[in-house]
C-alpha cells in the first residue's frame, strides 16, 4: 500500500524560518527519507510554493479564484502533478479535468521543489 504524508503548517511561520532552521528540519526528516530511498520505498516528494502563488478552480464551470482552497467542509482527497509551460496552461488543464463535476475544487499551486522518487506503483 502506498501512503501519502501530507504536510500542514502555518506558512507564515515556515516562511519565517531562517535558512539554517529550514535546512535543519529537512535534514532531520532526511534520516527517514534517505532510508526509504535506499529501500526503494520513497515515492515522489514535493514542496509547494506559498499559498499566495495559488489559484483555485471551483465548480463544474471552472470559476477561477485567486488564493488557496480554504474551506473546511471539504477534505483533501488526492492530487495530480502535471508539467505545464505556464500558469494559464495549468489552469486550462485542471479546468478541463474538472469540467462537468459539481462541487469540490481544484487548487493549482506551483511546486518549488520536486523529487521523483522510486517507490513501486
Amino acid at each position, binding site marked *: 500500500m502506498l501512503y501519502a504524508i501530507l504536510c500542514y503548517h502555518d506558512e507564515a511561520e515556515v516562511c*519565517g524560518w531562517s535558512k539554517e532552521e529550514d535546512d535543519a528540519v529537512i535534514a532531520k526528516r532526511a534520516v527517514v527519507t534517505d532510508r526509504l530511498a535506499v529501500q526503494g520505498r520513497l515515492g515522489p516528494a514535493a514542496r509547494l510554493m506559498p*499559498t*499566495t502563488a495559488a*489559484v483555485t478552480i471551483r465548480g463544474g464551470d471552472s470559476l477561477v479564484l485567486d488564493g488557496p482552497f480554504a474551506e473546511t467542509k471539504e477534505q483533501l482527497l488526492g492530487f495530480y502533478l502535471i508539467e505545464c509551460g505556464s500558469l*494559464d496552461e495549468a489552469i486550462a488543464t485542471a479546468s478541463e479535468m474538472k469540467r462537468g463535476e459539481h462541487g469540490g475544487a481544484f487548487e493549482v499551486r506551483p511546486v518549488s521543489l520536486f523529487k521523483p522518487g522510486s517507490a513501486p506503483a
Partner: protein
Amino acid sequence: MTDIAWIETALTSARPRAVAALLRYFHDLDRAEEAFQEACLRALKTWPVNGPPRDASAWLIMVGRNVALDEVRRQRKTQELPTDEAISDLDDVESDLAERLDSDHYRDDVLRLLFICCHPDLPATQQIALALRIVSGLTVKEIARAFLVSEAAMEQRITRAKQRVATANVPYETPGAVERSDRLGAVAAMLYLLFNEGYSASGGSEHVRASLCDEAIRLARLLLRLFPSEPEIMGLTALCLLQHARAPARLDADGSLVLLEDQDRTLWNREMMVEGLALIDKALRHRRPGPYQVQAAIAGVHAHAGSAAETDWQEIAQLYGVLEQLQPSPVVTLNRAVAVSKVRGAAAAFAMIAPLEQRLCGYFHYFGVKGALLKQVGHNAEARVAFNRAIALAHTPAEAAHIRMHLDSLLRDTEPQRRNIRIERPRIRGADK
C-alpha cells in the same frame, strides 16, 4: 529547533494579526502592544508545558485581551472569561474562540495597523521605522542599527512618530471599497520603501539590510494572503522576490557592488525567482496592469536570461514604455533609454535622455548613463565631463568605483591626451561612513 526558538518564530509570525486585532479592541497602540507583550510572556510559560495552541494569533489575542480586561473584570465582577491555561489545552474552547474573533476582521485589522504607519505627516524613514517597530516587532536597537543612528535617537524618532499617529484620527470603522484600495496603495508604497531601504547599499551591514528585505517580503506576503485578488500586491511581492533573489550575486568578495550585467547568475536564488515569476503569471491574468506588476515583469525578463547577453532588451524597452505611461517620471524614461540603447543604439538613446538633464541634474545615474552613451558614440571628452559629474553625485564608494572604471577605460582609449587631462576625484558623500 528548541522550544524557545520555535515559540519565538511563532510569536513573530502571529504578531501583525494579534497586535492589529488588539488595536481594534483598545483603540490605543501602546495598550495593544503591552497586551501583546504580556500575552507573549504567558505563551513562553505555558506553551512548553501545554503544547502550542492550534491558532497562535487567536490565543494571543484572547490572552492579551484577558490581561488588559483583568482589571475591569475584577472591578465589575462580571462573568469570567476562560483563562489562558484553559485555552491552550481545550480544542473546542479554542475553535469556538477563533470563530468569535471573526476572521473576516483580520484583513482590515492588519491593513489598518500597516496603514497608520503610513501617516502622510511622517517622513518615509519614520513610516518604515514605525512599521518595523509595531508591525514587525523589531527592537529599537535593531532598527537603529539598520538606519545607522544611535538607539536613543531612534527611540526618540519612534516615540514622536507614535505621538503623531495617536493624535491623528485613526480610522477604526470598516473601510469602504475605495478607502480600502487607497489604504492598500499607501501600505504597498511603504513596504516598497522598506524593501528599498534594505536593498540600496547605502549603509549598515549586509546582514542587517538583508533582514529589512526579508521583512518587507514577509509583510507583502501577509498582505497578499489577506487580499489574494489584488494584482498590484502580487506585483509588489514578485518585484521584491525577484530583486532580492539577486542579492547573493550583488556584492563581490570585497563588498563592492556588482552590476546586473556582471553578476554570476548561478548565485541567484532560484527558489525566490520562480516564486516571483509565478506571481507575475498570476497577476497578469487580471489584465489590470500597474507599476509594481510592470517593474516585476522587467525584473522577470532579467530572471529569464541565462546570461546578460541573452537579455530581451526589446521586451524591457517595451515594458518601460508601459511604465512610463502608468507612472511618468524622468527616471523611468532614463531606464527606458538604457534599454533602447541596447536595441537601437546609443545615439537614439542619447536623444531620449538629453531633454531630462534639467530635471535629473542631481541624479547620479543620469550622468553615469549619459557618460556611457557619449562614450559609445565616441564623444570621449564630453563623456569624461559626465562621468566626473556622476562621481561627484555618487552615494556609495561602489557607485563611484564603477564610474572610475569607465573613466579608466576612456583614458586607455585616449592615451596621447592623458597628460593634459586631470581627472578630478572629488570627495564622495558617504564614503567615510
